[in-house]
């Protein structure tokens, strides 16, 4: 939690973080669970609404910011991370949280994901992973299983899915976790941990799309997920990678967590280094005179 986040603690109820805009998700959409978990995490932490900036791309899940009482920045498809980075650097007092989908994150936004992880800006990123493109009505996504039949893969997807957890680990994210939207209590806990983490916190949440993905359903995840063992050391990246790549189970929990200087801190360092001696415009002019 940033310093400023803890300042005003009078807000306590999750409803205080819900806007008056009607939620347009389908009944049974996994994203409801995430919305609930996020609101509760906000309430638990007592975050001041005016410091919250929710940033999203385009997709069903990217409607998320509409439904929270916060500043909401609904940018273009795939541009969530660089937009959020600009906000978080421009005003480090804000609590900047990205909320979007798997297509937005790993397909059109994949290139930005790499660089956000390594730069470690202090912002949180929640991906609602339904292994499908929801808003465009059901095409396969980068996390769709091999052989998955969708509108754009009528003969079954022929592409190996990506593994977001391993990717984030290898890209150098300083906080990497996975949740499941039907486990709201656990999700809330992960979100709280992510917000409390100083740096870039990445959270992939399985969030089923009952409308367009009939395979990766609540039931499917219930059978497949498994909490990371207590013995797992969250500072051990090799171990985190091993769990991420486990073939039998989809582990949930915090895979990796280790703070290092944030991008904001490093930029502050540079500003400080640069302005050791006070400078005036005239000093610049004279360089060219």
């Amino acid at each position, binding site marked *: 939690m940033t310093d400023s986040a803890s300042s005003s603690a009078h807000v306590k109820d999750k409803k205080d973080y819900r806007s008056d805009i009607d939620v347009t998700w389908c009944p049974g959409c996994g994203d409801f669970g995430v919305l609930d978990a996020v609101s509760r995490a906000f309430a638990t932490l007592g975050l001041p609404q005016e410091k919250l900036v929710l940033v999203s791309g385009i997709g069903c899940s990217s409607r998320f910011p*509409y439904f929270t009482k916060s500043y*909401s*920045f609904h940018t*273009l498809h795939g541009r969530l991370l660089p937009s959020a980075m600009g*906000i978080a*650097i421009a005003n480090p007092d804000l609590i900047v949280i990205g909320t979007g989908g798997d297509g937005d994150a790993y397909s059109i936004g994949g290139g930005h994901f790499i660089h956000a992880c390594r730069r470690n800006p202090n912002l949180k990123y929640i991906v609602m992973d339904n292994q499908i493109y929801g808003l465009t009505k059901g095409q396969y996504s980068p996390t769709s299983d091999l052989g998955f039949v969708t509108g754009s893969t009528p003969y079954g997807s022929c592409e190996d899915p990506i593994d977001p957890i391993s990717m984030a680990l290898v890209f150098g994210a300083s906080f990497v976790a996975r949740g499941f939207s039907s486990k709201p209590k656990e999700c809330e806990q992960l979100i709280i941990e992510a917000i409390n983490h100083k740096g870039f916190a990445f959270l992939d949440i399985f969030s089923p799309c009952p409308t367009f993905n009939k395979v990766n359903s609540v039931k499917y995840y219930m059978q497949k997920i498994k909490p990371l063992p207590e013995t797992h050391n969250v500072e051990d990246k090799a171990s985190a990678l091993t769990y991420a790549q486990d073939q039998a189970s989809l582990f949930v929990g915090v895979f990796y967590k280790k703070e290092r200087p944030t991008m904001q801190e490093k930029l502050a360092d540079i*500003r400080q280094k640069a302005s050791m001696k006070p400078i005036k415009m005239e000093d610049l002019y004279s360089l*060219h*005179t």
Partner: protein
Amino acid sequence: MKDDVLILVGGEGGEGVISASEILVKAAARAGYEVYTFRTFPAEIRGGHAQMQIRVSPKEILSLGDRFDVVIAMNDEAVQLHLHEIKAGGILIYDKSEYDKASVADLKTLDPNGYIQKNNITVVMVPMTDTAGRDLKTPKSKNMVATGAICAALPCFRIDIIKEMIKQQFIKKGDLVVQTNWQALDAGVKYIQPNLKLFDSLQIGEPKSKKSKRMVTTGNIAFSLGSILAGCKYFAGYPITPASDVLEYLSVHLPKFGGNVIQTEDEISALASVLGASYAGLRAYTATSGPGFSLMQELLGFAHIAELPCVVLDVQRGGPSTGLPTKAEQSDLNIAVFGAHGDAPRIVLAPLDVPDCLQVAIKSFNLADKYQTPVIVLSEQSLAHRFEPIEWIDPSTVAIDRGKIVEEVQLNGKPRYARYDLTEDHISPRVLPGTKNYYYIMGGLEHNIYGKPGYTPEIHKTMTEKRMKKLELAREEIEKDKYYFEEFGDTNASIGIMGWGATIGSTKEAILLLKKEGISVKTLYTKVLSPLPVETIGKWLKSLDMVVVIEMNALGQFTRVLEAAFKRDFVSLTKCDGVPIKPEEIVGKVKSALALERRLV
């Protein structure tokens, strides 16, 4: 006494051609002269030819001019490339060491001797390489030998000023370095001494008035300085020729003023983060060239509908596609004005010269903030990298208008803050995130006044109109501001020339040349290409029988814009070969257009 002198310094890339030229230009400027330069780059990293053209005069200089009075050739290639560009009666200063070593054969293929005799060119040999390498044991000082030779030949480049500059520059590296460079300078002077009389006819007069404090810098650096003056605190960019030096300059200096500079993974990320920073309240911008600018179109449309201020500097180069990365061209007007999908007009500005780059930077941030909309600035390679003197600007005189950023909002009966409220001037008060009691949705979907997405005909019509009318207001403001218009020539002329950007110098000079031939012409350059200042231009066009439009692209992009706006004929002079347009070309075009209209007797 001549009015001006035009010299060229040429040599191998890496031999210090550019740094020597820069010193010469600054020295002349410090002595109160006017200076105008042009610089081309080797197309390939390795080898390639480096050159700088410098025109000096005690009076105002309008353009680069034509043939050279003096060429200083630091190697053979420079001779081969530029010998035929020396004026009759001009002088070639040549590295004797080069000549002695390898080049005679090369020179012979050119038959330079024949050429030199025929065209009455004098060759002065200066052993640059040998003096630097053998005598001074510092081969790098070769460019200083050349510099000394020029100073001796043309005292408008004052050697005392240059010595002082060298001292300032090198004193950190120790006294010995300063001494060596001074010795190299002196050696250069020495070799010219016996031939001084040759240069008598090339001397120019003293500048009349003492000038105020001036720097000498390029369009890109001037824009960077302007952006710092404007209070910009966030820059994100991705390297690209010829815009990379903005990123590099700001990387060094913006943090000194509390700003952040980030090299992003691509241009899309650069502009996306700029828009994020702008949303959070900082003045923010990016700089790029054609290929990167093409990639930014989707985000520019987003900034338009989200009503987010931002500035994008597009330093044009030869196109299309990767095109001619180091060449001058003005072919991004179409994409700047028409480039995003949907109805998303923008403000597009184009500076005319280096001092303008600084001013336009300040203007662009003010316009972006005031009208909450993206502003595009079209610079271009030759302007971006040419050195020109420019006044020191007193920061306290720079007006900053951040527009309607508020911390309190009058709700006027509305249930809550309406980010896109309909107001008389179509601009809505803007609250920055972090402000208590307000929150709103900002995004790229069509929306109602609260920012909530809405697709009804009413919402779309109302909001489209709001966004268009803002630009209409911007146009009205612009039309009232003389700064945006540059006029020149005979006010009574019935022939006009229009254009945009850095061709203005050649246009002015062409007008002077035409006047000498008894042809009366005037010109109007607008620094605003969108929204087009139709009133100012319309009024100016009224009395004109013929209007020639000058531009450095093949399609006549500006001509088409003018035709659509004024539904009249224009004579289009397009030039698209990577080289800035010359006064003579304009003169020729005007005359042939006149002949065509059978008005020439």
